[in-house]
Structures are given as structure tokens and as C-alpha cells.
């Protein structure tokens, strides 16, 4: 009887550890974008790397809408580009 209780407890413990490890692994994979949350999850590591030439773009300034070439931003000082949205 006692042996079965110990075996049962061990089995439950192993199941718990496996479940926790599985959940942790799944969450870590989601964080890194290896697993997608849903069809709208379009995260990507991209191919741009440190040392590469920054892609040159001309974007509209908020409000006025006048075009601003990115290259004009780092002509004098390094520029920190913070990409994001409201939501």
C-alpha cells in the first residue's frame, strides 16, 4: 500500500514537473516569436544587423506630413529610432 502511495506521489510530481517545463518552454518560445499567438502576430527578427547600413527611407512627419529622409536625422548626431504604435 505504502509503496503505491509513494509511486503515485512520484508520478504526480513528475507530471507536475513535466507540465511546468512544458509551459515554461512554450512561453519562452512565444516570447521569442518561435510560436505565434495568432494570425496577427507578425513579429520577426529581420535581417538587419549591427554594422549594416540603415535602410534609407523617407517618412511623413506627424501632423504636417512633410517628408523627412531618415538620413537627415543622423547627419550630426546618432539617432535613436523608437518604433511602435499606440495600442
Amino acid at each position, binding site marked *: 500500500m505504502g509503496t503505491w502511495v509513494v509511486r503515485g506521489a512520484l508520478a504526480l510530481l513528475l507530471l507536475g514537473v513535466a507540465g511546468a517545463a512544458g509551459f515554461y518552454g512554450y512561453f519562452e518560445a512565444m*516570447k521569442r516569436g518561435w510560436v505565434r499567438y495568432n494570425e496577427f502576430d507578425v513579429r520577426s527578427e529581420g535581417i538587419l544587423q549591427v554594422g549594416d547600413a540603415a*535602410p534609407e527611407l523617407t*517618412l*511623413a512627419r506627424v501632423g504636417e506630413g512633410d517628408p523627412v529622409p531618415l538620413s537627415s536625422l543622423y547627419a550630426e548626431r*546618432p539617432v*535613436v529610432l523608437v*518604433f511602435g504604435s499606440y*495600442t
Partner: protein
Amino acid sequence: MARIEELRQQYAGAAEFVYVYIKEAHPEDEWQTESNRKAGVVFEQPRTMAERMRLANTFVSEMGVESLTLVDDLHDTANACYAAWPERIYVVDTSGKVAYKGGMGPFFFDPEELDAFLREFLPKSAASAR
């Protein structure tokens, strides 16, 4: 966002901070989140440039953004070139090279890492410019 603003002030004169507004991460008609609903941040994904510009304006005024803010086009060109969605930070040096590429948001969007990078990088950058 508040931390980015702090960093902008901290490094004023040494680096420019520019926001690039890209496609919405959690619009109502795509992937809405409960936290956004509770905060009243409920918007549909802009479908025209005028809509995107309007929402970018709202973002700037509601978040108190003081930096220059640029708006990605409807082809999401900036997003594609910089693998930016949903949020990401880069630093480009004065020669036009990528000096820092931040992690993929939201989990690896890390203003503290940016701060550590700028602390080391900016003095060297200023010295080499002299």
C-alpha cells in the same frame, strides 16, 4: 514610453530620439487586448494614410510625445525594413550604420539595455567626431 522620454532628456544634445509610428499592434478589429479595453485604448487599424496620420497624432498628444515623430506608410515599408512590429529600438550612427539593434518587442523591448548602450557608445561617438 515614459522611460524613453526620460532617456531622451538625459541624452539631449548627444543623440536624437525619433519615434516611428508603425501599424497598430492591438487594434480593435484585429488583436485587441483586455488591458487596452480597460484603458480605453480602442482603435481600429488605420486603412488609409489619413487615418494612420490621425491616429499617430492622437498617439503623440495622448502620450505627450515631444520627439519628432514619423509615420510609416501604408505599405509598412519602415516596419518591413527594420522588422519593427510591434516595437523595437535601433541606434543609427552618424555614418548611417546600425550601431544598436534592440530586441523584438514586447518581451525584449528594453530601454534599460538602450541606456547601457548609449552610456558607452555616445562618448566614443563624440570623440571620433572631433
